[in-house]
């Protein structure tokens, strides 16, 4: 055990920091749940990629830097510290990207990854269906192989950022006789294919952060199948693993939220201390964010040495989503009567973007497998408790 950075790691941090200092937009971009904001974020992805900072863990030949997980953590720390924009293509670069590298053909990698890296093609997910949410094995949308094409019919929903995305990836039932986890196939679909209708779903803040996607005899070339026909579940589980895992939720994000929460508390201390629960909640937020960072470093080091993430990754989802909710709830308490105001309200001094964060934090315990499902997984797979 050696909990100090190497000279190489320090130099890497300096390089990241210096590039970000020169390149991060001075003004925060508009949210990518608006069309203009989406476009601005897409441009930021291109800029990042031009600096070869788009996906630092990707191999150099794909425009990455072949970073290990510690360097990735360092990058994320600097990224969040610099207040750089959220990653509009996170479904692509963090979820589909690694899955493609594991299951994709060379042709697929060469065709898809570079455009994903530049943000030229932004990806959305097509997992959930109206009757297949937590119960993903209940998928009913079909893909019928005809010659060298799949004919897709059905409906996907809760597809994050699909309103302006270029592609979606998801699972479809290729064996109509199959049930549950069997007979599903992982297919990549260009969203401009005829027969596709994307209906925006406004989220809590009224913006169309996700969408329903309707497929009406949509023809997709068979070369867009990822993995074997009928093997979709295994491919998807790899992706879900990434999603729940550390890649999407770097500790830096929560540490910065905790830091801002401490600042907010200090700036409002005399009113905040009227509720003695607040100081304790701030303290806990800081401790939990640090615990999350420490545990992530420990896991990253283990993975760097060839270890595997197991069922304990389900603890990750619960931990960060509840931490995020608690931190934002505490901020709401501190803000008191100001908490409900939109940031542009004239008397909303000092509210920052806490309200947006609070709304967004509501989705944490729900998406990517509800926390109830995660608790079942922990109990059954990590602790070995009996299934019904």
């Amino acid at each position, binding site marked *: 055990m050696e909990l100090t950075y190497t000279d190489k790691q320090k130099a890497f941090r300096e390089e990241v920091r210096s590039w970000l200092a020169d390149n991060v937009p001075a003004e925060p971009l508009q949210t990518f749940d608006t069309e203009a904001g989406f476009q601005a974020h897409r441009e930021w992805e291109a800029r990042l990629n031009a600096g070869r900072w788009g996906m630092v863990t990707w191999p150099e030949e794909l425009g990455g830097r072949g970073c290990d997980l510690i360097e990735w953590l360092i990058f994320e720390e600097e990224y969040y510290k610099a207040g750089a924009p959220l990653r509009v293509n996170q479904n692509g670069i963090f979820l589909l990207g690694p899955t493609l590298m594991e299951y994709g053909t060379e042709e697929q990698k060469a065709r898809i990854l570079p455009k994903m890296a530049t943000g030229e093609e932004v990806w959305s997910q097509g997992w959930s269906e109206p009757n297949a*949410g937590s119960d993903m094995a209940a998928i009913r949308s079909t893909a019928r192989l005809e010659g060298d094409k799949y004919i897709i019919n059905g409906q996907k929903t809760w597809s994050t950022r699909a309103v302006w995305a270029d592609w979606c990836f998801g699972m479809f039932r290729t064996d109509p006789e199959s049930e549950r986890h069997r007979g599903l196939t992982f297919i990549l679909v260009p969203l401009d294919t005829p027969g596709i209708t994307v209906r925006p779903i406004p989220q809590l803040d009224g913006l169309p952060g996700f969408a329903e996607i309707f497929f009406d005899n949509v023809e997709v070339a068979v070369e867009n199948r990822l993995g074997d026909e009928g093997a979709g579940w295994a491919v998807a589980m790899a992706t879900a693993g990434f999603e729940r895992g550390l890649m999407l939720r770097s500790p830096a994000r929560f540490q910065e939220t905790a830091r801002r929460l401490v600042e907010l508390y200090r700036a409002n201390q005399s009113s905040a201390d*009227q509720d003695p629960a607040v100081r304790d909640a701030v303290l806990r937020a800081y401790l939990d964010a640090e615990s999350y960072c420490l545990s992530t470093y420990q896991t990253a080091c283990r993975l760097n040495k060839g270890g595997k993430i197991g069922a304990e990754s389900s603890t990750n989802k619960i931990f960060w989503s509840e931490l995020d*909710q608690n931190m934002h709830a505490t901020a*709401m308490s501190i803000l*008191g009567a100001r908490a*409900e105001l*939109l940031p542009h309200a004239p008397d909303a001094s000092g509210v920052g973007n806490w309200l947006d964060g609070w709304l967004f934090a509501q989705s944490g315990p729900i998406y990517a497998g509800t926390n109830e499902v995660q608790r079942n997984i922990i109990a059954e797979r990590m602790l070995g408790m009996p299934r019904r």
Partner: protein
Amino acid sequence: MDFTFSEDQLLFQDSVRDFLVNEVTPERIRASWETASGRDAALWAQLAELGLTGLTVPEELGGLGMSELDFILLAQECGYVALAEPLVHTALVAVPLLRELGGELAAQWLPRIAAGEAKVIVGLEHNLLVEDAHVADLLLLQRGERILAATPDQVALRHNESVDPSRRLFAVDVAADAAEVASGERAAELATRALDRGALGCAAQALGLAQRMVDMSVQYTSERQQFGQAIGAFQAVKHHMANIAVRLEYARAPVHRAAYSVACAEAVASQAVSHAKLVACEAANLAAKNCIQVHGAMGYTWEVDLHIFMKKAWALANSWGDAGFHKTRVGEHIFAEGAALGAGATFA
């Protein structure tokens, strides 16, 4: 000792609930979001017709002459439908303050309120912003050691947008020529009582909001199927809902006690109100948290009605005194030297 509501009070609650549930539908609330004022004059006229705007106005001034206690069950029902019109404010804050101010002002405005012809809105120093100031025909504003009565032409309003599109909040600048209607000690006392009644209204509405979120969620989880069964059959979902039911069950009596205490001007009224607001708003916040969770992604959408009630619950928790304010008031009581606590002290 009688801690029950009368048959009349319960029947009145039933009839008002029926009216509100039928009239103040989520669709109507959504429609009002699109209007400039966000307020629904036709609905206000209906409420007036039922006598609700004048419920706490003395009979001789055209009202029903009822007390804050008589109104409290109705305030719960206003929460149940997330009524956006300032009915709770009128019955619990504006009318009682006008009654206390008395004289010309009361004689002039109370009949008009009862008739549904005028709205009076109160803004205290404690209110960061004044809800519904834009539809007020008269504003009673606490400024320093004075209470002023201002007509719309005597104020300048600055709109502040809330996460709850039903809420219309305004900073109010008042002209120097607004009439002083109370000052000094008396103004401070009136303001404290007005604040108590405002907080009481939040608490009662919070009970209704929580109940509505529970009812919606029970229905949703009884219908929504996953893993081959209604998700409401899963123990985790049941326990989320049961946890709300427990907190809600024990938040009701404190609200009713606070209403009684305010209506009777008991010495413990402020403390009873703070207790009620803390536990009722906490129950509503828990309801919001657990109900969005059992709704899954549906709960995170604008289209499903849950957020109408959830956002209002969040907002009320910080209105008319946030948790810190009310905890401080309770703390001043219980941590005082020689405080009367423990068995037998509750109604002493």
